[in-house]
């Protein structure tokens, strides 16, 4: 699975994107975020406040209970502020 990071999530993690080799027991967005938060200090800082984290799976917004089955790309970012 490919991970994309945007805005201050990107800055705190220090990466635009990275490949993820997920353990088999990580089946939902919530589980993915918990697992990712352990990856580095930057990941932990980026994902500390889950109320400020939004996720898209293969370019579609997804909630914490969404399944990762068959997903090729996960984008993680703050609430959007365009317009």
């Amino acid at each position: 699975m490919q991970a994309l990071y945007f805005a201050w999530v990107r800055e705190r993690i220090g990466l635009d994107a990275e490949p993820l080799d997920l353990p088999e027991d990580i089946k939902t967005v919530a589980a993915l975020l918990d697992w990712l938060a352990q990856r580095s200090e930057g990941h932990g800082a980026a994902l500390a406040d889950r109320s400020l984290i939004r996720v898209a799976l293969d370019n579609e917004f997804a909630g914490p209970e969404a399944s990762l089955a068959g997903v090729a790309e996960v984008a993680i970012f703050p609430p959007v502020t365009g317009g």
Partner: protein
Amino acid sequence: MRIAIRVQPEPFDTAAELARLGTSRTDIGAVASFTGLVRADDGLTALTLEHHPVMTLRQMARVAAEAETRWPIAAGTIIHRHGRLLPGEGIVLVAVASPHRAAALEACSFLIDWLKTSAPFWKREEGPWGARWVAARAEDDAAAARWQ
């Protein structure tokens, strides 16, 4: 799709876009437009828009399609810029042409309200404070929710 969609780093010309919408048709009774501009609040010197390119176009197309199912839209344009913008520059343009006044005005409001909350753009402000990311505002969610 009767609403054209563009995401671009280049400036846009609201006047030219409006002129293009309204010309050479006699079935359009109303054209409504909204332009969002960079304000120099508190000494802001630049505004940078980051975006998720694939998802942005998909979300804009979805919002445009939803507007076309709700209102009789003859033609329209949505342009959203990304990259670094200076005070006074246009960020976003929404323009809708319709046979009817209420449809044009409502569709225009709907499009900008939904773009704000569903298109993956993020604003970073430069100024006396250095650089900071803009926080999402609850009133933008409320503005979008009234269309649901």
